[in-house]
């Protein structure tokens, strides 16, 4: 698994007798993450948009409910869950699209590492750049919505377990629509039904904690869903990419 003497990124001439040492799984992952993060850093403004969207959504909810503290506290956990879910959803379309347009995805398919692995790594970057900032911001956003403090640990735990599942399922949907010129609302239409169980268990466990019940059951189910999707979703997304670029 350890990267065996990675070949330098610039192969000069593809001469037949030059043996190019293929990068290992870790090496490929490191290179992909570094590239994605660098690209993200080059357009820092765009990268902030999911977090801004979540903040705006929280503000709109507060305004729509008229700033009623009790009403806001009651729906705070659900609103935060939805804000994270929708922010991730908006970023889905760009998950593979740029790479599909500039031909990088074809290179992924030809790469000596499994396509599913690259998909998993890219999905991790997606989660780390869209959901993780929201997870860090959740205490502040919760404070804005008068989220009862004792619900915060359960909310954070459910988000930490649930949002990777959302990214993984979203990767499958994004891969399915990558062949289309514009997927538009179809991505949301395909992804949201798949998101429902995660939302039910995630927001549901916080709601149970709010009622003074034990939220562990829902969290364990979320963890189980995460384990299964972690295994299967990258493979399904890889299959979808193969179909789309056929």
């Amino acid at each position: 698994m350890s990267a065996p003497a990675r070949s330098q990124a610039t192969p000069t001439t593809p001469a037949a007798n030059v043996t190019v040492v293929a990068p290992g799984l870790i090496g490929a992952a490191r290179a992909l993450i570094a590239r994605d993060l660098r690209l993200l850093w080059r357009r820092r403004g765009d990268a902030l948009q999911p977090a801004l969207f979540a903040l705006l959504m929280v503000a709109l909810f507060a305004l729509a409910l008229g700033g009623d503290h009790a009403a806001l506290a009651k729906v705070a956990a659900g609103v935060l869950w939805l804000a994270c879910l929708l922010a991730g959803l908006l970023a889905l379309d760009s998950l593979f699209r740029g790479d599909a347009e500039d031909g990088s995805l074809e290179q992924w398919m030809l790469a000596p590492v499994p396509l599913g692995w690259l998909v998993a790594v890219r999905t991790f970057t997606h989660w780390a750049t869209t959901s993780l900032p929201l997870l860090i911001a959740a205490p502040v956003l919760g404070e804005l919505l008068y989220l009862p403090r004792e619900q915060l640990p359960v909310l954070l735990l459910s988000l930490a377990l649930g949002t990777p599942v959302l990214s993984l399922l979203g990767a499958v949907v994004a891969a399915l629509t990558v062949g289309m010129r514009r997927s538009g609302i179809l991505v949301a239409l395909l992804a949201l039904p798949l998101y429902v169980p995660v939302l039910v268990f995630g927001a549901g466990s916080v709601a149970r904690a709010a009622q003074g019940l034990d939220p562990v059951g829902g969290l364990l189910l979320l963890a189980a869903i995460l384990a299964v999707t972690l295994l299967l979703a990258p493979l399904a997304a890889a299959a979808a990419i193969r179909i789309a670029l056929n």
Partner: protein
Amino acid sequence: MNPLVLWFHKLGSPPLFDRFAARWARWGYGLGLLVMAWGIYGALFVVPPHSEQLDGFRIFYIHVPSAWMSLAVFALMAIYSAIALVWRIKLCEILAMACAPIGAGFTLITLATGSIWGKPMWGTWWEWDPRLTTELILLFLYLGVIGLYHAIDDRRNAARAAGLLAIVGVALLPVIRYSVVWWNSLHQGSTINMFGQSHMDASMLPPLIWMLIGTKLWFVGALLSRARADNLRRESGKAWVAELVAGKRA
């Protein structure tokens, strides 16, 4: 080659399938309607009224078979899709995509009849109960499969992509099937016991079985005629279709 296997392989050929589907779709529809008519007659006139729900329970003879079909058709769609993805059998892609609108129809009937039953019995058209919610998600999944199939231009790629979505969606089926069992501990009250064996008297059972058989036969007819239409559309440039159409006109 074994004649049965040979016949099965031959059926993959579009012209042969067209002839097969044209013949058997009629039988599926005809027998299905006949059996369902018998089942409806039994459900409406033979079975005595329920002790508590009186005549209200009779809608179950539509509701239960269509709920059953809504799950079975999805599973069948996923199986056809898996076969299409692995062995690239064109006919299986067609059959899988023909399943989607029929399954969506059954799901819609299930939701509608459940809602109509729920109004007098529960006092509400809709309850955010796990069984109802998951059935609604199933409808959205069907619509997603149909939408994806029509959003991609290349028919074969479209069928494979939508088929993959169907396979991913299969994860929902056990959730729907066991939602009543699983959520009992979480969800107090509002448990639907329509699948409970204990609540069914033996005299009420035969019409339900007729309806279950009838919907399946009708489904065979619908599936074959839908698949036949899609098959003809895909093969529209071929000589045998031209001959078929010319023969019809003559």
